[in-house]
């Protein structure tokens, strides 16, 4: 019989998130699932409500993209009691692993480390970096920061000299970068490390308007690989972006089906991401547009 699967998404806070939702939905349709979608609008409490509504409806499985890593024990126990398996996507949980089937996703710490490593190579280990964070306290931000810090710790010539929140947006990124350029001086900044592409796009604008050449005078690295960043990169304004795969649905559904079939599923499934450089940017942009 066809499976009924509920998908609890965090919200639609970014283009990447929308792409993720769409990809997952398309995958479910391709498999002929009865697919139920709940958008939590960026609130954990709404995600909990959605899980409970799926429990009441008696779905066959729940796919959860947790907004935060903590606070799930109770509701996951309820799902467990109702015999409904839960698969995590996008990020993991700080919970008893027996409460979910598996966790599909990328590794934020790893991503931070990859960017750090790229920057270390590019600048030969000497670089004053400014950081554009997303919202304070976002899990992704904390882990990427940690991974990044782990790497640059090894290079005495590398340090983060300023850090601010650009609230995930290009206007925010631009505004913060403008202030950095004034207060620190463009010539004293070697690279920008933006926690998402949008802020990188804004930062590049600010650098340009200050009469400097982004990606040459100041390096720019970011995460997400949204479509628009490839355009900017192709224009030679940012240096690197890290892809976060929005195609996690297939892996999650596979795991769910395997679990329902009584097979063993590994607790952690990592979907690969990769760095993208200006060389392939134009091509990627054309492909993704």
């Amino acid at each position, binding site marked *: 019989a066809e499976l009924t699967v509920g998908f609890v998404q965090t919200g639609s806070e970014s283009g990447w998130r929308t792409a993720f939702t769409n990809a997952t939905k398309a995958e479910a349709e391709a498999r002929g699932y009865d697919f139920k979608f709940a958008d939590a609008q960026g609130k954990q409490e709404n995600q909990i409500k959605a899980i409970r509504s799926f429990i009441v409806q008696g779905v066959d499985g729940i796919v959860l993209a947790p907004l935060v890593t903590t606070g799930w024990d109770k509701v996951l126990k309820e799902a467990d009691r109702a015999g409904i398996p839960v698969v995590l996507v996008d990020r993991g949980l700080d919970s008893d692993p027996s409460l979910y089937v598996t966790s599909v996703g990328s590794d934020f710490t790893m991503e931070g480390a990859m960017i750090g490593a790229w920057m270390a190579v590019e600048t030969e280990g000497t670089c004053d970096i400014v950081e554009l964070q997303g919202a304070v306290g976002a899990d992704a931000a904390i882990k990427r920061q940690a991974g990044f810090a782990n790497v640059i710790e090894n290079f005495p010539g590398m340090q983060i000299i300023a850090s601010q929140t650009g*609230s995930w947006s290009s206007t925010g990124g*631009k505004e913060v970068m403008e*202030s950095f350029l004034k207060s620190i001086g463009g010539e004293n900044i070697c690279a920008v490390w933006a926690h998402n592409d949008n802020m990188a796009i804004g930062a590049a604008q600010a650098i340009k308007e*200050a009469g400097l050449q982004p990606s040459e005078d100041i390096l720019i690295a970011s995460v997400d690989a949204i479509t628009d960043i490839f355009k900017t990169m192709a224009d030679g304004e940012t240096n690197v972006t890290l892809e976060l795969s929005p195609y996690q649905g297939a892996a999650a559904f596979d795991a769910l089906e395997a679990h329902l079939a009584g097979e063993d599923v590994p607790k952690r499934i990592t979907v690969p991401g990769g760095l993208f450089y200006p060389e392939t940017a134009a091509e990627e942009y054309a492909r993704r547009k």
Partner: protein
Amino acid sequence: MMNLKGLSINPKIWGPILSLVAIIVIMGIIDPGFVRIEFKDGRFYGSLIDVLVRATPTAIIALGMAVVIGTRGIDLSVGSVVAICGAVAAMLITETDLSFASVMVLSLAAGGVIGMLNGIMVSYIGIQPIIATLILMVSGRGIAQLITGGRSVSFDSVAMDIIGSGMFLAIPVRIWIAAGLLLLTILVMRKTAIGLFIESVGANARASRYVGIEARLFKMFAYVFSGICAALAGVILIADVGIAEINRLGLWLELDAILAVVLAGGSLNGGRIYLGLTIIGALIIQTLTTIIFSSGVPVEYNLIVKASIILAVLLVQSPTTQAAIKDLNMKRKGVRT
């Protein structure tokens, strides 16, 4: 002393201006770089210029908000209107061959239409403003996502670049736009009777009805105007970075706009509208933000700093403090004579 006496005609008017000046002066003493303005590549360059440039969207929205608040209303939907109109403008630029002028007109018209929906809900159906506009605040971003299909839209447009970061007479174009809008608004409000009617409706809607003012029409007008202002801000915001990110565009702008109006002395209970001071209010907020960004305060202290300074400004301006200062002055004078 004479001078000060002249200034103290109305603490309500001088409060916000002096607060702004005080913040800038204090910051200038701590960090002279903050107040330095250079002339470089045919344009002015400096943190204070950034403040002006960055404040324009908030200031423009706050103008509309001031008028709405004058009618004893509130418009929570402006952030979403920014997103919708940004989306409309971006889509029109990328997907059609319309001239830039038509794009502008259509985008602003979209804002006007949404404002009209708000206006109808508030003044003709009688829904409380905060709820009526909350409806569009929630669903408006959804509409914006529908328009672009949920993705962000980047575009190339010379005209938009000019709006976003162009210069005219060495001053950013968007400052001209904001100044023009302010002037136009003041003209419309003060050289016609609209301003009087709106203030009257806001201060006492019943009495206004008795004198034959069509309260509903003018309330409606206020929301339409607010919608158009938000649309204009939306266009400026996307022009700034050449990309319309509907998911975050204009998020929480309504709070800053309301804050600007209230800092300017506007009362949420309706009545007097202070257009010029509203701009000052927006500048105060932006100055704070820019100071926080350029001063190296750790991120997690941003909000505390902002809240503390706002509170300080409010406390100094408050009627109670003013009265206490006056008392003190009187006593001092009393001792002297």
